[in-house]
């Protein structure tokens, strides 16, 4: 950006940054407004075009029976009325909650446990172990789905092979809804550990050694130290991991598409998949948008509840 005010704003004799600020010429103030505007400009446009516009459009659609073509025909709250009486919508939403409630704690425990081991000086070969456990981060949700589908195949999978070799009978991993969801939960924990582990490692390293030593001198055992010193120390990170994992689980889509495709039948169809199916495959755009609005409200509520919870604790 050419800056015409340049020469007048140069103040070579100003001795203190405070003094520079207190001069506060009108022209300088202008350049403090224009420069950041130039810097954020592109992202502001992207924000308006790809968040505000579709967001507003989605809200608009949710009050219409739009099917992807033609004019918008407003039908008031009919979509929402239909939605709240729709069994498949509740099934999808309920299944998403079950999935979230089961997978988030598992991800939390796995990533914190692994991180705790990886910062412990007693463990040998930490760098190598860290790389091994981090590898799943590189793998796309689609391929994670492929890998776990391959592991847990009902007729030819590795896990069933081990079970039958050990004398058991093959487990119906894909034809039983609950077992299929179990596989999905394992897969999500496997894929989700890596990144959260990094967050926890950073947090654990920041806990002052002196605190842990003081607790040890006072006679606290390892478990008590972990519970009373470490856990409170990493509370902000825990909060963040839980919030991010919850939002991530609520919008799980790609991995399920590859792993079970919502099956068996539609038993494990999660909410985003439900929205995709109604919105794109059946092109009930208005109806799908209404479902989207419900999901958005749920996500906002989760975020606000967790935020409040975090504030109270702090």
């Amino acid at each position: 950006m050419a800056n015409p005010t340049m020469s007048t704003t140069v103040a070579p004799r100003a001795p203190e940054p405070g003094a520079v600020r207190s001069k506060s010429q009108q022209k300088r103030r202008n350049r403090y407004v224009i420069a950041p505007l130039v810097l954020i400009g592109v992202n502001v446009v992207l924000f308006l075009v790809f968040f505000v516009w579709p967001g507003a459009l989605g809200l608009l659609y949710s009050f219409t029976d739009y099917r992807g073509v033609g004019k918008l025909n407003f039908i008031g709250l009919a979509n929402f009325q239909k939605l709240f009486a729709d069994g498949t919508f509740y099934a999808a939403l309920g299944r998403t909650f079950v999935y979230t409630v089961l997978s988030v704690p598992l991800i939390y425990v796995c990533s914190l446990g692994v991180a705790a081991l990886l910062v412990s000086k007693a463990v040998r070969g930490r760098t190598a172990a860290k790389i091994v456990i981090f590898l799943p981060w590189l793998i796309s949700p689609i391929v994670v789905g492929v890998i776990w589908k391959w592991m847990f195949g009902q007729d030819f999978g590795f896990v069933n092979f081990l079970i039958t070799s050990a004398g058991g009978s093959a487990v119906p991993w894909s034809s039983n809804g609950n077992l299929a969801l179990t596989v999905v939960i394992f897969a999500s924990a496997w894929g989700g550990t890596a990144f959260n582990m990094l967050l926890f490692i950073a947090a654990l390293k920041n806990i002052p050694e002196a605190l842990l030593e003081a607790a040890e001198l006072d006679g606290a055992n390892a478990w008590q130290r972990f519970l009373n010193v470490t856990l409170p120390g990493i509370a902000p990170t825990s909060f963040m991991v839980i919030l991010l994992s919850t939002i991530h689980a609520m919008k799980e889509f790609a991995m399920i598409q590859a792993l079970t495709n919502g099956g068996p039948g539609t038993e494990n169809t999660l909410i985003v998949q439900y929205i995709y199916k109604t919105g794109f495959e059946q092109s009930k755009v208005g109806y799908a948008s209404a479902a989207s609005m419900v999901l958005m409200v749920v996500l906002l509520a989760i975020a606000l509840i967790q935020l409040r919870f975090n504030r109270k604790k702090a």
Partner: protein
Amino acid sequence: MATAANLPPAIAEESALGAEKVDSARGRRGPRSNREGRARLSVPLTVLMWVIAAIYALPLLWFLLSSFKPGSELFSYPLSMIPREWTFQGFVDAWERVDFAQYFLNTATVAIVTTVLTVFFSACTGYALAKYNNKGTRLFFVCILATTMLPTEVILNPTFTVIRDLGLYNSLAGIIVPSVLTATGVFMFRQFFLTVPDDLLHSARIDGASELAIFFRIMLPLSRPILFTLAIFSFQWRWNDYIWPLIVLNDPKWYTLQVALRSIVGAENIDWPVLLGASVISILPLVLVFFVFQKYVLNADVSAGLKD
């Protein structure tokens, strides 16, 4: 401050900053830690760690080794971990039969172009949010925060309409442009620039540098570590992205790897040898990038960007 009129102090500050960060990252570990207790625990903890690592590695290992098996061996009992007969046929088939080279090229184009744009614009925005405190930047900060609560998954249909109305439907630009803005990237840079002392900015201003020159010539070079970290993150996000390509692309000639893989795995009869080969090929570039730049990922204080 009176002497901080030229650049050398900036460099000194940079190194001081770096040293400080290393210090805080390592934490202060006194030499008085309980050596005896540690030695006693060393064996069981190490074993535990490696058992866990093995559990994490197993699915990947099984998947990798399976991709080297010929189709007939994939389903012949008893299964064996190590292929009895090694073959590259799955990879060859995937590459030739499924037009994989084209998907590979499409994905690479999207990932590289988006990454460059994301890193650059995130740096600009993050810097503006960190160093210019006015109503506009504060408001935009809240807006960016809101995007994390309103993910694309929630507004699939309207996003599709917007893409179509902009004429971006069925083109790679339709995936690239909307993905440039990422909250994580902006927050990472914002957090980093918050740690850069304002004095640096003031002294550059006193020297008569224009605002944008300060950013491009002093601040951007300072942010190199974050730049690399975000570049790798962004490359991974875009390489593995599924939902944008799914809604934007229709013509198979523009498909990215993830959409192509999904169409193989979603078929009535899954062609497992091709699927395994194709999946393995699809993760190779990322593995390569990761091993070259792993220190920027594994040692990065990734929480910096996300903590806000």
